[in-house]
């Protein structure tokens, strides 16, 4: 019985991890090696130089992705921290209505927003604009982050706030000096998720960045599929370069990630 379970576990793990392994394996193979049969299960040589060259050729797009991610994180944090705190601890009217609205945004088909948003952006000069794309990605990250932060802040003891008032703090001071420093774990969680969403964004970058030079790396990779049809090494190198920062981020912040996924269930 136990043995059978291990076999199932092994098979499922292979199914989940093989594509990732195959991506990394393909990065270090020449075209001839990639097409050789039987295939090379492990690269023969690690030609870092030509891999590096592919990355450098596309440096502009990676830097676009980073700029967009940075702005998205800044906007998200600026909007979500106060809103999350307000909905968790302050006595605002209509709280359950706001929560309902936020919950509905979580289920919202974003691809439905893209048509009207494109037309609005094209009239307001937000196309081909880093901040415009970041704000568009914010439709995904901001409501999510508010809900995650709220459920984190609800669990902070009220005595923290009260102690701040006894020490003579006003509301603003208590928020900035006491609440924010005590919410760092929650804030880390939303920063990690906002980065993952923004770095991995495809829909908004594809639509809002019509100028090739401004496109994020995800869109660049998508267009390379058509352009370099069978240059799998280039495509796998770009894929791996997109995957790597996400992997590093997740490994560094594994707890924050698991927290965040758990908090997708925001009804608590």
């Amino acid at each position, binding site marked *: 019985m136990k043995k059978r379970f291990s076999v199932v576990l092994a098979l499922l793990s292979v199914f989940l991890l093989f594509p990732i392994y195959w991506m990394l394996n393909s990065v270090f193979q020449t075209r001839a090696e990639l097409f050789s049969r039987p295939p090379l299960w492990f690269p023969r040589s690690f030609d870092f130089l030509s891999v590096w060259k592919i990355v450098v050729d596309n440096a502009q797009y990676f830097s676009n992705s980073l700029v967009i991610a940075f702005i998205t994180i800044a906007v998200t944090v600026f909007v979500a921290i*106060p809103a999350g705190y307000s909905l968790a601890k302050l006595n605002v009217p209509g709280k359950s209505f706001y929560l309902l609205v936020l919950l509905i945004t979580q289920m919202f088909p974003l691809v439905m*927003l893209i048509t009207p948003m494109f037309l609005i952006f094209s009239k307001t000069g937000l196309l081909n604009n880093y901040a415009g794309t970041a704000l568009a990605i914010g439709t995904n990250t901001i409501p999510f982050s508010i809900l995650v932060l709220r459920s984190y802040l609800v669990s902070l003891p009220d005595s923290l706030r009260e102690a701040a008032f006894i020490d003579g703090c006003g509301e603003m001071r208590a928020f900035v000096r006491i609440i924010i420093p005590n919410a760092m774990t929650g804030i880390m969680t939303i920063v990690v998720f906002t980065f993952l969403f923004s770095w991995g964004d495809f829909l908004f970058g594809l639509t809002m960045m019509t100028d090739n030079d401004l496109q994020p790396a995800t869109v660049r990779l998508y267009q390379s599929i058509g352009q370099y049809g069978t240059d799998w090494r280039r495509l796998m190198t770009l894929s791996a370069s997109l995957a790597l920062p996400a*992997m590093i981020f997740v490994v560094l912040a594994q707890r924050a990630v698991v927290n965040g996924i758990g908090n997708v269930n925001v009804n608590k």
Partner: protein
Amino acid sequence: MSHVKSRWFGILLLMPAGVFLLVFYLYPVTYNLYLAFQRMDAEAFMNGDGAFNGLENYRALLQNGVFYSALRNTLLFTFFSILFQYSIGFLLAVLLNKSSRAANFLRGLLLTPWFTPIVATSTVWIWLLSGSNGIANYALHALGLIDQGIPWLSQPSTALVMTVIVNIWIGIPFCMVLLHAGLQSIPSELYEAGEIDGASPFQKNRHITLPMLKEVSAIVILLGVVYGIKIFDLVWIMTKGGPGNASQLLGTLSYEYSFAKNNFGIGAAVGNVMLLISLVASFVYLRVSKKLQS
């Protein structure tokens, strides 16, 4: 006194979020409802504004067979994605329900498909499934199952199934993590009591684990419905809804109308249909999760 103060401060802190939601949700959604009543093709877009054309966009859509196959594909896509994501995610959560270092490590590692950018994973799958040089065809050939390479993504009979498989692959870790959290919240006394009563592992699963996971299961499944309906990236990258609409979904159809055919009016109409379905699903979700909590 401080009560009133806290109220005003609370409203102040909500302002940025309120403004954002008005500008980036309410306004586009309202505009989209309006847009679906407009003739807004490439020409109208260039000239600045469309002209009112009533229900013409919806009529054109409902008379087009593509809409129905996109609707059907979306439902099939969603149903089969959830079925397998949930059952495989459940299996993994149970198999890895230990707190050993190895189990923790493997759980973390298995999350990779979920957080890797979808463009990257889709591209990898295109390579795996490539008709001429893909490893999938090599493996099937080596096992003697096929004679010649199958173009998995570019033949109508397999394109949709393949995108579903990749979507299942992406979604399994997500289900696993949520169900794992659910398993962790079951008090161990229940299992001990079962042990005393002489329950077999299967009986314990059937009578303790499954009922205790009712709430989290309902959430996982309903989130799956909601995610399934709005799927876009993966299918657009892997097949663009093709070949010949074989893997066309509502999301890709809306995008195709707006940005490949530049017919924003019909694109908006498809978007509104998606919105309607999502709202119904959200409503059911809220209803069910409220019921489970009380």
